[in-house]
């Protein structure tokens, strides 16, 4: 989240789209009801279903699954055509004035630089026009036809209300009401917050949907302000933490990246990942990449990482491509993966195309499960009739199931959506012989290291040299690990501006990542977390919940990364001159000497307004990127494309170009593309999601939750049900090109048929909480139906938009 949970109470308008906060984050949703009760805020929900969030909304708009970019593009069109823009904010804090190079173009939904075979773009043509010093040219008057603002206007001129209504199926008048309510926050004294979750990420153009939301918020001046922001409501208690710690295929901790094959030399890697500022006044904080990287390598390899061996650069694996879960299980399906470790994860239920996942798992030589619960994946080799029809004797996988502790039996920190690292304590002994995760990993690693020491083996150096200074080698303690990722001074750190002052003495825990060095004199396992465990103690365990400014800024509760900033880009809560947009909701402003306020400035504290330092310190531009020349796989501006399985036969935005029907840059393997359903056999749009009573597949193992939602069901609109002769409570069979499931039908008025031009689109809801294990009634994995195709940038599977057929069972 750019802001945080409690800050939602400061909002005047709340848009919940691509998420269902009332059901998936009820205690966070409290702050929506607080905003409604105490600020007269208005809640609007845009969702294919009338969810329990919609039950609380002042305005609900139905939408066809997968057409979010068209909807948001339409709102942007409305803002521009009705001049409902916060122009001062746009000029001060966005790259609207930047001038784009001539090479850029968009025709029939395809941007310049597209290679049709490789389904890849070369972003070179999207770059800014640079001056002789390498800085981007700007036109403060915003008149230049190739400045970002004009290109944006031109781009979204096509998203007229009528076309949006035809693509999304949302009635025009309802759509206009959403636009008016959003437009009402174009003034400095009214802010809108957007709360989204997997409803936006689970698409083949998920990242671009989120960028469209960000553009919308920037045009309204709602980023970096109290009650504003782009707020991703993360799914798991520590999904934010593990993302920050770089537990993703090509990542390193702190959003650093692993080297590629093409980074043959250390300098290639460094130059590729250390950006140059695009404006003279841009902080361009990523320019400190070497400090973070070297500190990481010192934390991991200690003395073995020296300047001479480029800080143990070759100890890091280089990647030829990402190994996301769709690619992984495709390789596994082809027998190219021998071993797999599932720690607290249930792929058989949560990955797309369950039959393919099951077939892939059967090819494994060994599978290791580390989990507190008995999951479906651990029993993938058992035949459970229609719910898991496999031949046990033919499956040769050796499966190890290791019992781990649950939250109550372990100590450590979790990072929530608001980037708060919160420490928790152990309250009970684990059942039986269960062990904590650090102990299991510690035991495993020390044995592997011992085997390499005894028997030798291939490239043992990184295993031998990995720092392991834990008092109990087989069971590293949470404090030791927290101190390691926080980072230490390996030598006295001197203040570059004032040579006599020592910022941190040798051996001390560092207080901020500003003290990190690229000369090997500092270590930090995860630079964004520096400041979590300092000489002043465990900041994550702080419990002072005082809120001195009444804006919900509880800076002394736990620790928020980066350096306890609670609202990111909070300098943008003031104008160019440093004066707050809204005097009643001040975040960070210039008080004549310093940038101060109710939050730790996301900005150089002593940067005076005259210096014109941009408020977005991590971008090379120094300001927010309406137009993104780099970073996105499918284009600098979000464009609407259909999901890979769409009930429509044509993309009404770009009917002319075959490649522009769905995301031209999304990767899909041949065998998965062959299993895409056509509207003729599978006419109904479907989306899979979670209910408030259950947490994914965990809580079906819990009696309390099994009672309140005992049996698998699908939600069917009453019009479609009448057509198909399905009565409420009947058993129905839902099938896609990849398989079928059976469940009870909940016939409801909360799912309406949508008119998308000449096609009437029915939508079906598929909650995914059941399986062949647990206390609740046995059920099917809903992902038996979902397609194996992911977002072009993150490869997050398209769980939220595919097509199915339905009939009485």
């Amino acid at each position, binding site marked *: 989240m750019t802001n945080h949970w409690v800050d939602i109470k400061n909002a005047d308008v709340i848009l919940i789209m691509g998420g269902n906060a009332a059901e*998936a*984050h009820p*205690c966070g949703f409290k702050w929506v009801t607080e905003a409604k009760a105490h600020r007269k805020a208005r809640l609007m929900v845009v969702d294919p279903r009338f969810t329990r969030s919609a039950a609380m909304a002042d305005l609900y708009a139905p939408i066809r699954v997968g057409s979010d970019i068209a909807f948001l593009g339409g709102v942007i069109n409305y803002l521009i055509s009705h001049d409902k823009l916060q122009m001062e904010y746009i000029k001060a804090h966005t790259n609207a004035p930047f001038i784009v190079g001539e090479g850029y173009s968009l025709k029939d939904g395809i941007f310049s630089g597209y290679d049709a075979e490789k389904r890849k773009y070369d972003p070179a043509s999207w770059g800014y026009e640079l001056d002789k010093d390498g800085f981007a040219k700007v036109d403060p008057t915003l008149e230049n036809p190739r400045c970002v603002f004009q290109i944006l206007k031109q781009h979204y001129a096509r998203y007229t209300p009528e076309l949006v209504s035809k693509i999304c199926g949302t009635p025009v008048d309802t759509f206009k009401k959403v636009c008016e309510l959003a437009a009402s926050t174009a003034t400095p004294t009214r802010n809108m917050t957007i709360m989204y979750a997997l409803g936006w990420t689970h698409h083949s153009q998920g990242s671009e949907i989120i960028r469209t939301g960000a553009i919308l918020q920037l045009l309204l001046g709602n980023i970096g302000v109290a009650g504003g922001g782009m707020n991703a409501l993360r799914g798991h*208690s*520590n*999904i934010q933490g*593990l993302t920050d710690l770089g*537990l993703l*295929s090509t990542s390193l901790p702190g959003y650093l990246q692993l080297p590629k*094959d093409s980074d043959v030399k250390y300098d290639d890697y460094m130059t590729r990942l250390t950006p140059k500022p695009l404006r003279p006044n841009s902080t361009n904080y990523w320019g400190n990449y070497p400090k973070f990287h070297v500190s990481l390598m010192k934390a991991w390899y200690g003395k073995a990482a020296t300047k001479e061996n480029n800080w143990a650069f*070759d100890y*890091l694996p280089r990647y030829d491509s990402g*190994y996301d*879960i769709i690619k992984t299980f495709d390789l596994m399906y082809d027998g190219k*993966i021998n*071993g797999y*470790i599932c*720690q*607290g*994860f249930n792929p058989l239920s949560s990955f797309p195309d369950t039959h393919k996942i099951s077939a892939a798992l059967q090819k494994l*030589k060994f599978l290791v499960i580390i989990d507190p*619960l*008995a999951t479906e994946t651990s029993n993938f080799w058992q035949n459970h009739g229609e719910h898991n029809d496999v031949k046990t004797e033919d499956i*040769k996988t*050796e*499966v*190890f*199931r*290791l*019992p781990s502790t649950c*939250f109550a039996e*372990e100590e*450590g*920190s*979790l990072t*929530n959506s608001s980037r*708060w690292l919160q420490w928790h*304590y152990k*309250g*009970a*002994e684990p*059942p*039986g012989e*269960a062990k904590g*995760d650090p102990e299991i*990993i510690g035991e*495993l*690693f020390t044995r592997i290291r011992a085997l*390499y020491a005894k028997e030798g083996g291939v*490239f043992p150096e*990184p295993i031998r040299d990995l720092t392991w200074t834990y008092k109990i080698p087989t069971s590293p303690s*949470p404090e030791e690990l927290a101190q390691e*990722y926080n980072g230490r001074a390996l030598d006295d750190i001197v203040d570059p501006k004032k040579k006599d002052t020592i910022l941190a003495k040798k051996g001390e825990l560092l207080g901020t990542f500003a003290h990190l060095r690229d000369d090997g004199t500092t270590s930090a*396992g995860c630079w964004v977390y520096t400041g979590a465990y300092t000489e002043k103690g465990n900041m994550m365990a702080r419990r002072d*919940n005082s809120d001195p400014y009444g804006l919900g800024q509880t800076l002394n509760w736990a620790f928020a990364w980066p350096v306890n900033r609670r609202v990111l880009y909070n300098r943008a809560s003031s104008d160019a001159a440093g004066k707050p947009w809204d005097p009643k909701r001040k975040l960070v402003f210039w008080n004549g000497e310093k940038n101060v306020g109710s939050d730790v400035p996301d900005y150089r504290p002593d940067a005076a307004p005259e210096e014109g330092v941009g408020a977005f310190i991590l971008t090379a531009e120094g300001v927010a990127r309406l137009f993104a020349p780099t970073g996105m796989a499918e284009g600098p501006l979000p464009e609407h494309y259909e999901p890979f399985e769409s009930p429509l036969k044509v993309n009404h935005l770009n009917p002319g170009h075959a490649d522009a029907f769905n995301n031209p840059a999304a990767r899909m393997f041949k065998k998965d593309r062959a299993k895409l359903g056509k509207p003729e056999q599978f006419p109904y749009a479907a989306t899979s999601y979670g209910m*408030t009573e*259950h947490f994914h597949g965990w809580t079906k193992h*819990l009696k*309390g939750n099994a009672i309140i939602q005992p049996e698998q069901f699908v939600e069917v609109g009453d019009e479609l049900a009448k057509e198909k002769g399905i009565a409420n409570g009947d058993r129905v069979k839902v099938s896609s090109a990849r398989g079928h499931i059976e469940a009870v039908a909940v016939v409801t008025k909360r799912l309406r048929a949508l008119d998308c031009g000449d096609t009437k689109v029915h939508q079906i809801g598929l909650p995914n909480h059941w399986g062949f294990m*647990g206390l609740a009634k046995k059920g099917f994995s809903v992902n038996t139906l979902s397609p194996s195709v992911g977002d072009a940038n993150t490869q997050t599977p398209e769980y939220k938009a595919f097509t199915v057929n339905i009939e009485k069972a």
Partner: protein
Amino acid sequence: MEMNRRQFFKTCSAGLGGSSLVMLGFSPLAAQAETRQFKLARTTETRNTCPYCSVGCGIIMHSLGDKAKNATSEIIHIEGDPDHPVNRGTLCPKGAGLLDFVKSPSRLKFPEVREAGSNEWKRISWDEALDRVAKHMKADRDANFTAKNAKGDTVNRWITTGMLAASASSNEAGYLTGKVMRSLGMLVFDNQARV
């Protein structure tokens, strides 16, 4: 309670006896009416965070005993932490049911292995389980480690064994897992952020 045959006869004899007793003034005292005793009166409180969604609600776990050595601290109740600035003591239907997670009959208790082709779990010791896994991993790494790519550049990667890390494990466990798996050269490595 419903009458069955054995109870019927027992009743008749008791009824006769009982009524005669009543006549002699020995009527059973009206039971002491009492609301339920407050069950948290002497429990130990431990602060924790709900493991489910990313609101990160604060919870208080009440466990038996006062941490005396001989008393195993069993959790008997979990409630919201009123001091936590986000949930202020509230919990959603999942958080409010956390006790059933700690107590779930599906909790795994012992390391088990399913041998190739077998159709049942076999309980094994931690040592055996970890040794066999370590051997599997080393064997696969040694067999399939890619030191150089087709062009001959150093890549040092191992892509034939992968891992999915738990998004409910702590930052400390996550950091250690990341550090260990990268030291082995693992690229097939993800967590729930991917889905």
